[in-house]
């Protein structure tokens, strides 16, 4: 019993400093846009969960697909029912790391261009991507932003031919997260 207690204390001590390097948010913003000559579609999400470990550079995102808001109710319904199939695949996630995070001085205000590499999971399909972003430190607060493009077909999302002219082949995604310390 005593040994177990001791090992718990050791674990607690070992983990504590590590978790102090973790920052998180529950209200990150992710938006995506599809632009064609026929129709512009945009969707917003403001309940994105994200975790950033400033020591290891580990970064994660997770969101419920159903919480994307579209300007038209029909778009939201089709997105959930037919494209992203959110009953089968409720979440989209990203797990990766920020390259060379040790070069960033988090004690000082400033903004740094960063490159993030990791696994993006959408619609049950995992794809390794590398995307550029910006990491900003302002009076002790850390935020990240990024914009990149994805192709629905990479994630086996089929757009029916009857509406395919209204949905762009590549979708612009933007990310904005302001973190708080754990």
């Amino acid at each position: 019993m005593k040994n177990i207690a001791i090992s718990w204390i050791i674990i607690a001590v070992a983990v504590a400093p590590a978790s102090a390097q973790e920052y998180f948010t529950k209200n990150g913003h992710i938006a995506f846009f599809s632009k064609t000559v026929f129709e512009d579609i945009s969707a917003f999400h403001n309940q994105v969960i994200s975790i950033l470990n400033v020591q290891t550079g580990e970064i994660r995102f997770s969101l419920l697909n159903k919480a994307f808001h579209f300007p038209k109710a029909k778009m939201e319904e089709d997105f959930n029912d037919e494209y992203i199939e959110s009953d089968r695949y409720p979440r989209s996630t990203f797990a990766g790391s920020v390259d060379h995070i040790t070069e960033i001085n988090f004690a000082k205000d400033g903004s740094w261009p960063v490159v993030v590499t990791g696994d993006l999971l959408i619609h049950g399909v995992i794809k390794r991507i590398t995307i550029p972003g910006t990491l900003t430190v302002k009076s002790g607060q850390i935020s990240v932003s990024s914009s990149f493009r994805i192709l629905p077909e990479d994630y086996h999302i089929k757009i029916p031919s009857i509406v395919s002219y209204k949905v762009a082949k590549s979708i612009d995604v933007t990310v904005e997260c302001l973190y708080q310390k754990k």
Partner: protein
Amino acid sequence: MAQDTTDLMSKLENEQIKNVTKYAEGTFKTTRIVDGQSVENLHRHVLDVRISHRFGPVSSGIYNFFGLDNATMRLGFDYGITDYVMVGVGHSTYQKTYDAFAKVRLLRQSTGFVEMPVTVSVVSVVAVNTLRQFDSVKTHFSDRVSSVYQILIGRKFSDQLALQLSPTLVIEDNISFDHIRKSEFAVGIGGRQRISKRINFSAEYFYQLPEMKSPNSHNVLSIGIDIGTGGHVFQLHFTNSFGITEKSFITETAGKWNKSNIMYGFNISRVFQLK
């Protein structure tokens, strides 16, 4: 370290699920199962233009082009005032009927923060039979008005299957079919089963309480498929009812579900987001 992040992530994810209410979406593909109302409501500011056709008995053969020569139709406009209140008006060839309805959703099936096993809506329909009467007896406007009240209890069991129970009260008009004014109870049961991503099988049946129903009327059974194309929904079906409004198909179905009475019909629904 990575494990640490994973633990924190699952903690945050679980917290989020507990705090978010996840509503059942798309219990039915449109606001009707076949002809009867479903628990589905139009979203706010959505206009749904519905054109419903019913043809004559398929058994009438090539002379009637298998029923297509005697078509009746209903043209309807439905509108979502809010996400849970919708109204609609329509005109149907059968008995030259004008109808108007309102549907209010009271409960919505959900999981998460709010747990609710079923969606419950109430519907009220008023219809006016404007067919000229050649009887010597003078008919007043009030003799032509019928009304229908329904409670719809629906549940989406899975992506595949949704079922609905619809207790219905029909207050007849004084001139249609062989009715003298009276009220009637019926219980509707309907459902849909997904066949593919855009195609659903749907069916509905209304059971009229035997002691209340008109001796010449039969219970209506309609089966069909819904094909959704994003914006349009096509419903193709077979039924034994000639009428398309609630009062007529629930209580005035003249033929049994058999070879000589089955009719083909289809509905087209087109939605427009107005704001």
